[in-house]
């Protein structure tokens, strides 16, 4: 006789069991990237409530901390997308190729770099966060942003240019 039960258990139990361990991971991921406690809390709640919805699906995903962090990344991108929409209306980001970049080779001051990142437009911030803070390869950044790889490469070039200009501006301001 088989040793395993043949029914699917309620994944809701698994979520509650995972909660204590996963909460600091999800919250830590979000706080480091959005740098506002209230926003990190709101997004964390959205992540776990999305997990509740996922538990109700006929084929629930296997709930792991990694899965929750992926959802957190999506929520963060959604948040920036909302901000971007509010800031500019339903603007279609132009698909025209960006200007080629000058090589920029210098050590960044991490504190200053984070402050600069906070100042950038939401779409640039989203692209740079996924690419550099999370260290995702460009195709995955593209997937998370819902863009083509080509459009994402162009966006990253523009985002880096904007970052560099803001960074150099800040550096000059502090001199």
């Amino acid at each position, binding site marked *: 006789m088989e040793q395993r*039960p043949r029914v699917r258990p309620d994944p809701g139990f698994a979520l509650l069991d995972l909660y204590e361990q996963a909460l600091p*991971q999800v919250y830590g991921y979000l706080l480091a990237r959005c740098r506002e406690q209230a926003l990190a809390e709101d997004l964390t709640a959205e992540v776990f409530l999305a997990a509740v919805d996922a538990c109700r699906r006929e084929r629930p995903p296997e709930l792991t901390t990694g899965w929750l*962090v992926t959802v957190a990344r999506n929520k963060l991108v959604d948040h920036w997308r909302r901000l971007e929409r509010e800031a500019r209306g339903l603007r279609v980001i132009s698909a025209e190729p960006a200007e080629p970049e000058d090589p920029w080779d210098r050590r960044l001051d991490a504190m200053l*770099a984070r402050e600069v990142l906070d100042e950038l437009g939401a779409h640039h911030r989203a692209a740079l966060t996924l690419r550099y803070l999370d260290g995702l390869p460009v195709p995955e950044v593209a997937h998370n942003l819902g863009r083509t790889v080509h459009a994402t490469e162009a966006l990253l070039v523009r985002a880096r240019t904007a970052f560099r200009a803001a960074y150099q501006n800040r550096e000059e301001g502090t001199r």
Partner: protein
Amino acid sequence: MTDPLDALREPLVPVDPDPRFAARLRALLEQALLGGAMSTTTDSVQGEVGYASVWTPEVERAEAFYGAVLGWRVQSGHHQVLGLRQHLGLADGQSYHGTFLSHGVTDLADTVRRIREAGGTAEEPTRQSYGLSALCADSEGLPFALHEIGPRPAADSQPGEIAYLTYEVVDSVRARAFYSAVFGWTFSPGRHEDGWGVDQVRPMTGMHGGHDQPRVVPMYHVADIAEAVAAVDRAGGTAGEVSRQPYGLSALCADDQGTPFYLGQF
């Protein structure tokens, strides 16, 4: 070529949020998962198990066994398990040996008609102290009862209660057709070959085809499976191996009179 922006790399460092936030969110999740929040429909689910009993040749022996393994306290003379939210009991089973379920339905007469049309058998409903009841058997001959529907069972289980029920059936196509015709149940494919989950019902229920004889095998929730398996062994039952499942730990066991059940630690 190095990219200066690589300096922004931010490995995931866990941060404990404000404990008040953590507690609030947990309460919200519990409510969403276990409370009434997910049953947004007002239609009652037909055929949910409102009473389950273990039928064995020697009921007093079974009381001692399940008392030792699951901590069941049994009301003397009535064979009813006390102190649980679920209605569980034991019975003297000279004619039937196994786990016997009673399903709650809104309209007994209509359900009896459906059972007969779907190839099962059903006696005319009779009035018991707890309401109308009818003895039936499904299309494979597995006996069960109907009763007038009461409050919905809880969405979760506590130690000593049934966490879920597995129907082992001969032909799952036929059995699924029977239970969907009788109770309106729908099924989703499970993780195992010819394994099916019944959608929505409480306690969680599944079906598995390809068995010689139809039967129902309950999974009892235990707080500590190693302790419970050792208790099965001490009480003269057959203790199975504990295996890790996506939801927790489980072991297939049998009581000292050969009645199968699973133990589950979640």
